[in-house]
């Protein structure tokens, strides 16, 4: 791999990981806002309208930051990964294009109406705008995940000369890989939005400020959080993992730190991979669980890294830890949200300060879990850019040097540092101001 390719990988990793911090919130938050608007419309309870307006303000700054950090992603395929674009563009171009015409236009057109047009379009029109924003955000996620799924598991193509030719758009959109990857991504996003909402509500309740809004935030956040943290494990996570064992055995072996092919493969709860000795150091394992998860039988044989050529190994440690961080955090989310749901059902949650503290402090962790999940997906695919077809070293641009890329990477780092600080400042400020009760108070004519 040349220096230029390594530089391009650093830049892509940095810009995509920073970017994803924003859509991971907006995809889920859009749906939760639509839920709040629906409750408002059906019950005529103005408190839900105020709650929706509050989250719309958070949505607005998050969406704006997501847009301005997202444009560099679409452009980077061309700037730094020109050989990938030339090779795979006929296939991945379709989904990238579809995201633009079907999702972005819906999202951005109705966002203006949703944020500023409540009085112009009336309650039903405003509800519709909220639904369209959520629809656009979730649909946009589909096309991006479908693009990624094709890179993980190419389908509906044939290789014609020095590039791929798409033989079926339908196959691209119904890729078996995307079937569970996409619900898993959406579920992870909903966990993020739910826990941020519940955490903000807990913050208000603990301070005894904006308590009516705080109770709505905690209630909606905890219910949605419990549903989707469970859904992230089963069915979406479990079935996606099953797909992985069939499609990408090297990734699975790295995720589990499975150095040797074996029947009754154990699942490591903790342990440190040691690549020199080809073993896990100080492991705590559940015997047979990987075999069971992958093949439904505790005795099934699972491929280990020893049966995969060394030049096709992904970086084991990164993939192993990222996977364990994701699963460990996901388990904690299930524990936290189901405990909170239990107290909500017993009607004691709003007085349990210990539980509210946990909800408040838990809010940032879904970001880490989602990022870790994408690290598993992307680093675990190495050394391939398009699995089995194009290696990462053959995908980068030839006419862009490492020096050029490090120059722009440093530029992105500086800009994103400022942008991140400004976002946090504004986020904290909106939370500090709290929800306003009525339309008139929020928006003078």
């Amino acid at each position, binding site marked *: 791999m040349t220096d230029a390719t390594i530089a391009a990988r650093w830049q892509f990793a940095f810009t995509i990981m920073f970017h994803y911090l924003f859509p991971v919130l907006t995809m889920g938050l859009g749906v939760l806002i639509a839920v709040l608007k629906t409750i408002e419309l059906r019950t005529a309870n103005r408190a839900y309208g105020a709650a929706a307006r509050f989250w719309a303000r958070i949505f607005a*700054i998050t969406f*704006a930051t997501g847009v301005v950090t997202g444009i560099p992603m679409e452009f980077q395929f061309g700037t730094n990964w*020109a050989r990938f674009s030339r090779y795979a563009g006929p296939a991945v171009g379709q989904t990238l294009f579809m995201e*633009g015409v079907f999702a972005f236009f819906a999202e951005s057109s109705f966002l*203006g109406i949703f944020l500023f047009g409540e009085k112009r379009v009336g309650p039903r029109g405003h509800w519709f705008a909220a639904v369209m924003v959520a629809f656009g955000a979730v649909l946009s996620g589909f096309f991006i995940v479908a693009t990624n799924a094709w890179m993980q598991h190419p389908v509906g193509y044939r290789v014609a000369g020095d590039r791929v030719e798409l033989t079926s758009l339908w196959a691209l959109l119904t890729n078996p890989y995307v079937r569970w990857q996409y619900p898993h991504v959406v579920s992870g996003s909903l966990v993020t939005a739910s826990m941020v909402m519940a955490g903000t509500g807990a913050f208000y309740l603990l301070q005894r400020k904006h308590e009516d809004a705080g109770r709505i935030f905690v209630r909606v956040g905890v219910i949605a959080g419990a549903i989707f943290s469970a859904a992230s494990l089963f069915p979406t996570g479990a079935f996606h993992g099953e797909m992985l064992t069939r499609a990408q055995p090297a990734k699975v072996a790295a995720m589990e730190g499975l150095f040797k092919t074996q029947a009754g493969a154990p699942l490591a709860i903790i342990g440190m991979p040691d690549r020199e000795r080809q073993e896990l150091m100080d492991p705590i394992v559940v015997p047979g669980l990987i075999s069971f998860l992958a093949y439904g039988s505790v005795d099934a044989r699972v491929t280990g890294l020893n049966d995969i050529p060394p030049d096709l190994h992904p970086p084991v440690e990164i993939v192993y830890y990222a996977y364990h961080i994701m699963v460990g955090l996901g388990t904690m989310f299930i524990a936290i949200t189901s405990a909170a749901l239990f107290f909500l059902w017993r009607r004691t949650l709003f007085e349990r300060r210990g539980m509210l503290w946990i909800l408040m402090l838990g809010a940032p962790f879904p970001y880490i879990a989602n990022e870790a999940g994408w690290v598993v997906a992307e680093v675990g695919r190495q050394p391939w850019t398009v699995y089995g077809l194009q290696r990462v070293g053959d995908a980068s641009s030839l006419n862009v040097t490492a020096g050029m890329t490090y120059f722009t990477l440093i530029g992105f780092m500086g800009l994103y540092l400022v942008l991140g600080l400004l976002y946090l400042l504004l986020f904290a400020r909106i939370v500090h101001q709290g929800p306003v009760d009525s339309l008139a108070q929020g928006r003078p004519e």
Partner: protein
Amino acid sequence: MSLNTAWFLLLAFMLAGYAVLDGFDLGIGAIHLLLGRDRAERQRLIDTIGPVWNGNEVWLLGVGGALVAAFPTLYAASFSGFYLALMLVLWLLLLRGIGIEFRHQIHHALWEDFWDVVFSIASVLLALLFGVALGNVLRGVPFEANGEFRGTFTVLLNGFSILGGMLGVATLAMHGACWAALKTDGALQARARRFASTLWWVSLALLAAMVAASFLVRPDFTRNFTAHVWPAMIPLLTLAAMAGVRLFIGRDDLRAFLCSSGYVAGILASVAAGLYPILLPAAPGSASPGLDIYNAAAPRSSLFYAFVIYLAGLAIVTAYLVHIYRVWRGKSQPVYHLD
């Protein structure tokens, strides 16, 4: 008509759509500090584009997506070739976007002034860079033997492309002034009309210079116009739209804005008509030929699928556009007053 030609037309249409729509909000940015005399006026100017600028910018993403799907070789060669210029565009788009969206979050004089300046400078530079890009596309780029080129700033910044950049700034500024005249009233509207009127002359002079320079830089540019009748109609319609702007400024702001839209779209359409079937010409002395709608195109299946997506998408996008510009019709209301 072949699929390749259809895609050339669609690409030109999307680029023109982007130039017209994002053009007016870039234009607002370009004259923001001069047209808005105080913080309240600048607030009103940003309010005119607040609900729509993001949707306008999506057209650029649409162009990017269409390029990957239909002309992946052009996308790969041009985005990596224009590497530093494109990165600059990305950073400016970023600064401009947060300039619009973060400005109103805190009501503080220094905060608002800072974002006003960021928004305006980024908009001017973007209009300039888009004009420079158009100039370089007309002029051609130095392709190397492997079909790549390196668009360093020493290559990209030349007399011809800088002229294009100036034309870009003047034209979009005029377009933005027409938008401001349409969406505001009172003293601000009167000033916007005067701005549009003055910028009209600047844009016309630069356009004349640009056309004259084109004959020197690209002597074969007239071949499509002399060979067929209908391509020659495009520059004539562009000039008619330009005359329309003059006619309607101060009398009918909506017609003036529509004419100005026609003028912006017409400039791009004229360039496209002159270049067809070439997408990115090779400058003299290149080691490999330029890219055209055949050697840069995706395989037929991809062109076909993306074409179907395009038609479906166009219907939906048209419905959205009609809807949002109806919701936001009339003089603009304050939108960004949330705290």
